[in-house]
């Protein structure tokens, strides 16, 4: 059995899709760098859609009793917006950077399973397209991004939207599990000579820890999705209360996945800023062991906090008290990280490049999101604020303020490596400030709206004092926020042609990805020197004062023997 299809090998680092076999090279590639770039481009594409949906909702909410959107359209928009941003923007953004950078950072030439890597991407893309295919099949899903039963059952949602939603998430879940497996095995088996597990760059470590989270959380979601699909297609009774099923079970299963998912989106972003902050502070990271260990703590704790999404269900005082306590506990390892980053900057010579500004914005905004989150762990506070705009503020501070901001830090940091050209700092600074101001003005007022009692997911609101003003302010700020993204796209477009040539190591960083050319050739490294510390490039450039001579003798002996 022999296949006679000609599959071209990419000859250039980034094949041009307009020439000859360029497009085919992209479609057939198993190269982790090209797949990483495809992930990132997909994230950008879906981001435009998701942001468009958000903007339509903001226009609808601009003034009280507005008629821009029908209630039905509004339901579809917020559901698709939520699903789109979480599964089709943040996930591929983080997977994309990890797929691109992880092998480079550990001195490997490829992922452990290159074909699985390509499979993960394509099945993820298929899932994304299926979500939007529902638009042509009689309506998008309209029951919120967590599709609470029994609303999502066929009795209440008879259109095909929810079925498309379920299948799309199933496919993306399979893709994520495949990618996570690949990261774990790659980190364990493909490290270049000398890197010990406690010398991994923190981004690699976080992706590694995060992959275990994916491996454990996504199957739970998949099981729940299968159950609801069987409910809808074969008249089963899992979540139909009328015939003995239990809608609360759906909530348990969904949040059993859903809360780890929040950390799945946060941990890689933490890893990114843990790379960016030390480089632009010209200091090694403060408390490497604490950052690494606190990630493991977050991973384990995140499985014990899911029911804080369900305080309003009425599960009983003991139950609520347990999850309130665990939710407060999980703030501790996150706090440890924040202090480590601040301590890294302390006394360093901080360079406020755009990447660093975004990393700082993450520290500020994620702290705000984290604090409102801890507030929610107090059960009475949660009862007062659940399903109001306060929750909407919280989720946006965590996911935009945390994950997306971390993603932009990574984009400015790694763009020179990926394309060989620098992103413009001038446009970057404009992008950053409009982003920072636009984001905070849009979403900070949501806290007040929530405290005033404005419920989320309702297409309009009555003309009560302050509601109209605050909402108008938010809508205008959202436009400023939108302009910042236009600047980012313009920056990419402009810098790809006119950006400064980057060179191998434009930031004088210390991890291995900066050793090779920018963009790296198809074979990442011709030769990697023996790694003996957490900062291999520092050791290369400063043979008179390498890191490994200063560390304790035990470690030197171990690496020396290899």
């Amino acid at each position, binding site marked *: 059995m022999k296949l006679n299809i000609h599959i071209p090998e990419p000859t250039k680092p980034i094949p041009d899709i307009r020439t000859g076999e360029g497009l085919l090279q992209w479609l057939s590639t198993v190269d982790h760098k090209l797949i990483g770039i495809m992930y990132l481009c997909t994230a950008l594409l879906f981001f435009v859609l998701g942001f468009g949906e958000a903007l339509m909702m903001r226009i609808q909410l601009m003034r009280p009793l507005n008629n821009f959107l029908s209630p039905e359209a509004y339901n579809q928009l917020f559901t698709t917006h939520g699903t789109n941003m979480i599964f089709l923007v943040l996930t591929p953004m983080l997977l994309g950077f990890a797929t691109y950078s992880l092998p480079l950072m550990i001195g490997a030439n490829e992922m452990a399973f290159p074909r699985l890597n390509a499979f993960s991407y394509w099945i993820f893309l298929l899932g994304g397209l299926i979500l939007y295919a529902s638009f042509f099949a009689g309506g998008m899903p309209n029951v919120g991004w967590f599709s609470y039963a029994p609303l999502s059952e066929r009795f209440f949602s008879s259109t095909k939207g929810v079925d498309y939603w379920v299948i799309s998430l199933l496919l993306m879940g399979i893709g994520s599990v495949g990618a*996570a497996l690949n990261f774990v095995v790659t980190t364990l088996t493909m490290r270049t000579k000398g890197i010990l597990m406690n010398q991994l760059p923190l981004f690699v470590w976080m992706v590694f820890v995060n992959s275990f989270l994916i491996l454990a*959380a996504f199957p739970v979601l998949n099981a729940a999705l299968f159950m609801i699909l069987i409910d809808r297609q074969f008249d089963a009774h*899992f979540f139909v209360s009328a015939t003995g099923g239990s809608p609360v079970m759906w909530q348990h299963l969904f949040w059993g996945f859903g809360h780890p998912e929040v950390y799945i989106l946060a941990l890689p972003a933490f890893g990114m800023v843990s790379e960016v902050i030390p480089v632009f502070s010209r200091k090694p990271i403060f408390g490497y062991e604490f950052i690494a260990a606190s990630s493991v703590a977050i991973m384990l704790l995140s499985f014990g906090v899911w029911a804080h999404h369900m305080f309003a269900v009425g599960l009983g005082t003991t139950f609520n008290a347990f999850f309130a306590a665990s939710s407060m506990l999980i703030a501790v390892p996150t706090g440890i990280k924040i202090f480590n980053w601040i301590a890294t900057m302390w006394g360093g010579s901080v360079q406020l490049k755009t990447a660093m500004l975004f990393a700082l914005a993450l520290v500020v905004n994620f702290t705000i999101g984290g604090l409102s989150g801890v507030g929610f762990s107090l059960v009475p506070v949660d009862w007062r604020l659940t399903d109001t705009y306060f929750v909407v503020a919280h989720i946006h501070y965590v996911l935009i303020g945390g994950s997306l901001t971390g993603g932009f830090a990574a984009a400015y940091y790694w763009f020179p490596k990926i394309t060989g050209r620098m992103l413009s700092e001038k446009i970057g600074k404009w992008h950053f400030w409009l982003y920072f101001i636009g984001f905070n003005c849009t979403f900070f007022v949501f806290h007040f709206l929530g405290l005033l009692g404005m419920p989320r997911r309702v297409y309009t609101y009555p003309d009560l004092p302050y509601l109209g003003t605050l909402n108008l302010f938010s809508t205008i700020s959202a436009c400023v926020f939108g302009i910042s993204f236009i600047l980012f796209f313009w920056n990419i477009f402009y810098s790809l042609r006119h950006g400064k040539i980057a060179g191998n190591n434009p930031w004088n960083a210390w991890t291995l990805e900066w050793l090779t050319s920018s963009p790296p050739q198809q074979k990442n490294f011709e030769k990697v020197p023996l790694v003996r510390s957490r900062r291999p490039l520092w050791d290369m450039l400063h043979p008179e004062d390498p890191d490994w001579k200063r560390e304790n003798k035990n470690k030197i002996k171990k690496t020396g023997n290899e």
Partner: protein
Amino acid sequence: MFFFVGSESFFFLALIISYIYFSHTGGVLSESSHYLDIKRTGIFTIALLSSSITIFLADVSLKRLNRKAHRIWLAATIILGLIFILGQTTEYLKLYKLNFTISKNVFGSAFFTLTGFHGLHVLIGILVLLIVLIMINNGKFKTIEHTAFRSAAIYWHFVDAVWIVVFSVVYLGALI
């Protein structure tokens, strides 16, 4: 492969927890448990469990470089797996004749989903083992280190282990 199997175990964990939860609400268990034929399924369970032994023997004969024994034990594993699937299919047919279906009540939903997904995994396992067997016969593997065979064997053991739990919870649990 271990990580994949670990991930899969969370999938079954969720299904099993749901099964336990749903089978103990509102007395559906006492209504429905008489549909289950424990002795009959027990026999097919023995078939599946002995397939774990045969694949272990296949592994041993591979280590001893006894290629022929390796192939025979592998084929025996596949046949035992098929016997199990046959047993499950006939059981399903019987239940459907008795009008006990996935949409009958919440116990039916949980029962068919849990055992059905397990059966699907057995079927996938059989396909994988079959592919490995064909590749061995075609001489695709040159080295003794048959990673493909080892991975398939891990997966097969996992599917068996899950069945031990499922059988204990669903069939033996109904006796209590």
